[in-house]
């Protein structure tokens, strides 16, 4: 696997076996890297089909743990909570991020632009555990006790930058000539926005919403700290399962959650790839 891919600089020197800039073993190293990256995922999925009660003792192939997981009321409730939180958080975070991105990408240079950008991306820079603690303290200090509502508020906050980034990227790659044409043809500012800008921006908004949804569905630490007894989401429930003992039921639930994330991210990838090619220039 160390065969290098031909680059513009090949065969310059017949005596050297590899072109400049190529090194032996890079390909093999990369293969090893991907094995390291995907081994846990493969192992996790593989053992979800284990019939035995103990994860690590292979007891033959079977789907009983999937059936068990689907019949588990607690898991159903946790899935529900996860979906409610992720859906509401995605809607709010995407809406907030969209108008923020419109201002920051289209508003020209203004005082406070850098600070605004810093504030919006703040949740990305602060370690999750610090965010979790700060929000927990805040809710307790103001005495806010809305159960799942608390979790939703926290999720909206840290999902904003994830929704923001693809939307801003899309806006920055977008040409304004169509919007100008609409204005020239007597469309009002609102009509231009509604019928030209928004449709053009849609792939970015969809991509941002998908990322926000995945991030919210996967969040564990913040929900663990902020959420109370009734607001267990799926990752928090999986954590409690791990602490109780390792059964393949954990693997089965995890596999489903994993596949949902992979499906959404793949869809995101396709959407953003297509939007690269149809962007009007």
């Amino acid at each position, binding site marked *: 696997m160390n065969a290098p*891919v031909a680059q513009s*600089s090949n065969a*310059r020197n017949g005596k050297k076996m590899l072109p*400049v*800039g190529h*090194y032996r073993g*890079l390909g093999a190293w*990369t293969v090893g*890297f*991907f094995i390291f*990256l*995907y081994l846990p*995922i493969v*192992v*996790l999925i593989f053992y979800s089909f284990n019939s035995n009660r103990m994860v*690590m*003792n292979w007891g033959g192939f079977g789907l009983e743990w999937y059936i068990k997981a689907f019949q588990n009321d607690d898991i159903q409730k946790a899935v529900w909570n996860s979906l409610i939180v992720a859906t509401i958080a995605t809607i*709010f975070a995407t809406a907030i991020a969209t*108008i*923020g991105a419109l*201002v920051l990408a289209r*508003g*020209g240079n*203004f005082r406070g632009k850098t600070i*605004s950008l810093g504030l919006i991306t*703040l*949740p990305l*820079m602060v*370690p*999750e*555990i*610090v965010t979790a*603690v*700060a*929000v927990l*303290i*805040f809710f*307790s200090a103001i005495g806010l006790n809305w159960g799942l509502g608390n979790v939703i508020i926290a999720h*909206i*906050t840290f999902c904003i930058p994830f929704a923001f980034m693809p939307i801003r990227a899309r806006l920055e790659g977008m040409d304004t000539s169509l919007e100008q044409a609409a204005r020239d043809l007597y469309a009002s500012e609102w009509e231009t926005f509604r019928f030209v800008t928004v449709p053009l921006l849609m792939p970015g908004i969809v991509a941002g919403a998908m990322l926000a949804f*995945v991030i919210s569905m*996967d969040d*564990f*630490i913040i929900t*663990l*700290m902020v959420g109370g007894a009734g607001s267990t989401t799926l*990752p928090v429930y*999986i*954590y409690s399962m*791990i602490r109780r003992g390792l059964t393949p039921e*954990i693997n089965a639930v*995890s596999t489903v*959650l*994993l596949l949902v*994330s*992979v499906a959404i*991210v*793949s869809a995101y*990838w396709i959407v953003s*790839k297509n939007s690269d090619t149809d962007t009007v220039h």
Partner: protein
Amino acid sequence: MNLWLPKTAAGKRWLGLAPSYFVIGIFMLVPMIIMGVFSFLEPNPYGGVKPVGSVAAYVKLFFEYDLEDQLVFNPGYINIIFRSFQLSTGATLLCLIIGFPVAYYITLLPENRRNLYIYLITIPFWTNLLIRTFAWIIILGRGGVIETPLLAAGIIEDSLRMMYTDGAIAIGLTYSYLPLMVLPIYASLEKIDFRLLEAASDLYATRLEVMTKVVIPLCKPGIIAGCILVFIPCLGAFIAPNLLGGGKKLMLGSLVQFQFASARNWPFGAALSMLLLSAVVIMLIFYARSARKRADMEGSG
């Protein structure tokens, strides 16, 4: 229904930014300030705080009260903090060693294949970290994926006892944040003009020199960004030390969580969070400075 909209451009700008400021300001910035205040209060034994000013939380980092109520030096927490830095540094270096050749290899590929590789690197990153770390228990654990074949083949006679060690935590951390190292390095490698490498080679630079004197200096910004992106979440990590370290080998992140969930010493947990936050701020300042210095150099040269 008539919405009042500001007429001026500046007014519209701030109206558009207002929701972001409101949400992140109220639910992130203000909470961090309150956290700072809480770290200087006295703990309430049932969780929460008493409104009495105190630096006890910070004193607790270094000292404890002995039986005669005398303050004596207690290295326990300092050791945990030190261990966190050590493990995070180790994991960051591992990520760099594993990730750099991969990022470099991808840069050499044709463009459509590059995108596929980047997609494959980002996929695990978007899946649940808790689940991926749990999978390492099955791999490293007693009777797990690594041990079982070795035991069956008679290569080892007893369990390797890989779980609940610093090594297991380091593997978990490396695994968790590896994509955050590869992506920025790839981004800066991609910008390198490969003719520079040929020029170096024509001027009799060896292969090693081309790498150490041309490629690495040129992608230094990516390396620094990658190291910071990996180091920060490692320092605050909770899942890897908890699952793979068995909860006994604490790191800063799990120690913070413990103060809120079990020990019910909120001011101490807040003080530890402040410590973590200041480490992050120092690193980001360092990063911003080195970026500015580089920009100045490029500007003048």
